[in-house]
């Protein structure tokens, strides 16, 4: 504990409590209480380490309602790594038994079945009914490109068009790809978000070895969260480096476009399209150019930016594991996203994350807005006439 205090307080010492982070925090805007904002979360984390306070329900609610959107880190003039501090606080609380019940349910599901829905792993490919033949040909085959589908795409029927679309595109382009099927586990993000980061090692080792055994050189993910876990978080937490390149569908497809392999000049998509930057791809990684390049390459598209975009993009509320802890809070943010899309008369919101997709889509339904939610791979598949 003393060593941790040393390490953590070094990170927190930089904070001058200027509240710039509070001014942009989406959860503080919704809830108002200091403990639901970054400055309060840092104060609680430090107070816990210093023994001034002990974790309780209020602190759990404070630390676990952070959307991990990284807006506070982006804006902090003192360079405070707020998100990392909050995740460390969660780790300490997890170890003390103060992680929220909903986070623990996901953790238990992983322990039972290696997926967040606690479904039989044999059902991992149920999503592929529409593209069954293609998937069967590629399942556990040797291939240079590995596709990491992710739990949401695999098990949520309403999101199955995301993996189906990418598979169709890869098949259309004749790419040498493979899928792990039931050997694909959850990336382990629920452990990371709940605070049980030590468990990530097993997940990293499993995926590194599974893809390696198939000769994979590049893993592509359609889920922004899985992408970042595979690419960065496994290494940050365990020190293990992936023995392959990890890319998100955004950069994977943009690269194919640059190489001239992906030809979008035949189809047409006469709609006003906007792009929502998932926090995991935007502020966490800086992947802004690739999706815009792809969308703007589609003939007929009128691309419009949201009022708050790129590094200032409003988090949709779908991240950080918050949907489980405070569903109303998560939805309140998604509703704001739809409001912004309406302001620019967008007919479709494109994103690169099934979690954002699902949350924003629900908000669109609640508002009965005439806007379509789409994943980047979905719009590309449609532009290619593959739907």
């Amino acid at each position, binding site marked *: 504990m003393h060593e941790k205090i040393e390490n953590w307080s070094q990170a927190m010492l930089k904070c*001058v409590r*200027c509240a710039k982070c509070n001014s942009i925090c989406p959860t503080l805007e919704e809830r108002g*209480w200091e403990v639901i904002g970054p400055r309060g979360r840092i104060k609680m984390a430090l107070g816990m380490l210093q023994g001034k306070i002990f974790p309780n329900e209020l602190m759990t609610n404070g630390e676990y309602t952070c959307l991990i959107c990284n807006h506070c880190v982006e804006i902090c003039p003192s360079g405070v790594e707020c998100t990392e501090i909050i995740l460390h606080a969660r780790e300490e609380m997890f170890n003390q038994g103060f992680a929220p019940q909903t986070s623990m349910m996901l953790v238990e599901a992983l322990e039972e079945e290696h997926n967040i829905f606690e479904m039989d792993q044999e059902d991992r490919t149920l999503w592929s009914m529409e593209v069954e033949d293609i998937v069967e040909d590629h399942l556990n085959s040797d291939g240079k490109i590995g596709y990491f589908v992710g739990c949401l795409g695999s098990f949520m029927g309403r999101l199955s068009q995301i993996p189906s679309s990418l598979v169709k595109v890869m098949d259309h382009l004749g790419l040498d790809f493979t899928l792990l099927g039931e050997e694909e586990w959850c990336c382990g993000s629920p452990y990371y978000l709940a605070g049980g980061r030590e468990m990530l090692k097993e997940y990293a080792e499993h995926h590194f070895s599974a893809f390696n055994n198939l000769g994979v050189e590049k893993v592509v993910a359609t889920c922004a969260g899985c992408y970042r876990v595979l690419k960065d978080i496994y290494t940050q937490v365990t020190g293990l480096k992936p023995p392959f390149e990890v890319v998100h569908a955004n950069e994977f497809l943009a690269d194919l476009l640059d190489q001239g392999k992906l030809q979008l000049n035949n189809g047409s998509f006469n709609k006003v399209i906007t792009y929502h930057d998932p926090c995991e791809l935007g502020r966490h990684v800086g992947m802004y150019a690739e999706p815009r390049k792809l969308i703007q390459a589609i003939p007929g598209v009128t691309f419009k930016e949201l009022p708050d975009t790129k590094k200032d993009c409003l988090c949709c509320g779908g991240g950080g594991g918050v949907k489980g802890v405070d569903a109303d809070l998560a939805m309140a943010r998604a509703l704001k996203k739809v409001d912004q899309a309406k302001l620019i008369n967008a007919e479709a919101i494109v994103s690169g994350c099934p979690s954002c997709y699902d949350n924003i889509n629900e908000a669109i339904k609640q508002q009965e807005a005439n806007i379509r939610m789409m994943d980047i791979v979905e719009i590309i598949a449609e532009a290619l006439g593959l739907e």
Partner: protein
Amino acid sequence: MERKWIDKEKLKEFLTATVGKESFSMDPVMLLAFATDASRFESMPDAVVRPNSTEQISRIVRYCYENEIPVIPAGARTGASGGTIAVYGGILLDLTGMNNVLALDVDNLQVCVEPGIVNDKLNEFLKPHGFLVPGPASSYAATLGGMVGNDSSGKKAVSYGTTDAYVLKMEVVLPDGRVTTLGSNALKTASGMNLVGLFTGSEGVLGVYTKIWLRLIPLPEAEGIAMALFDELTNAGRAVINTFKAGIIPGCVEILDKSSIYAINQYKPEMNLPDVEAMLLYEVEGSSFEIEPKINRIAEICKESGAIEVKKATEKAEIDRLWEARSLVGAASVRVRKGYARVYAGEDISVPISNIPEMLTFLRELSIKYDFPIVTFGHIGDGNLHPAITIRKEVAEDWPKLEALIEEINLKALELGGTVTGEHGIGIARARYMKLEHGEVALDLMKLIKRAIDPKNIMNPGKMALDEDPEVILSKIPDRTI
């Protein structure tokens, strides 16, 4: 004075009945989160309440009056002087939820707001109407209530004055719970004593503002900027004085001295700022036809005063580019030496403009003497300097050294005919200088006013040296909050 025993069960019952259980907290986790502001002090209140109306505040204050419980009105708690620290516990009123615009009266150039509205949010609302309410550098978070309490201002105080210049009227809950309105909707009044002026800048020790009427300032049609470089500090000071003497009142005049330029170059090497003694940034606002002649005249004055280089801009992109250095200095100042973090202490002195060069030279000497990085920048147009001191917060011996350093800074500012605070306020941090700066009689007058309005001393006690000896207060509360 000591922290008073409070019947917490009774208080809980009262607050539940008054604001509902969702709008207050007595949880230690919450209390710790509200125990600090941007200053280095920490003290937990006994309860935090988020009221939503004047009536609720009046009832709470009345209860506190009857039970002699301290009341601490608070906005975003971005203050650097400890103005919202619950020195003796009590109820901290978090007013950030009362953040509505209540009325906009463009014809009569005024807006009525609740105290918790954030300055930038208010200006977002006012922009389509062509107006603004000027604010401090922390306008992204600072609330109007906090700004009125501190009589806040920022770089544009040169042209707009401090908050005091645009508060027309206020609704206040007095320390016994009575509600009254001070001031007038007329744009000027000579009626009675200026109680709006008295309550503005009173740091929450006289009452709680619940509604504030503000005079609107028209958004400038155009702006321009002049940047001047000097290899002699005295020439930079002289240039500012000569500008005013020529009858030009710029929107603002900012100074970055050698320490700031070094910090910015280290933080962002591509800026490649020249290694000079001082950089001045003048901003001019007004109608489009008057900008260019004014900027040209300022450039001439700077050259006549010894500037080695002057750049001018009236186009947005170029203006932003020239302003970039100033906007980076805060972030740059915390990165000068690894392991050193900024503390808000001795950070807000203001001296007569002609004494700025002497003050800057003195600060450089202190930086060497104490071996702490000090990056100095500020609003030279009104003599207000912000020395950003960084220390190793976790090293015990740095704290007494810091105390000695800020003592030297503040005493020098007073010696030069200045003040220990240009815009951040007294609070706890600078209370020990009240007698020295104002003299015993003036301080006694302030104490008499405080006692007349708040005989039980429940409103934000422990601030501005109005009650307990500041040295005793400082010995009682942790002042090394990291």
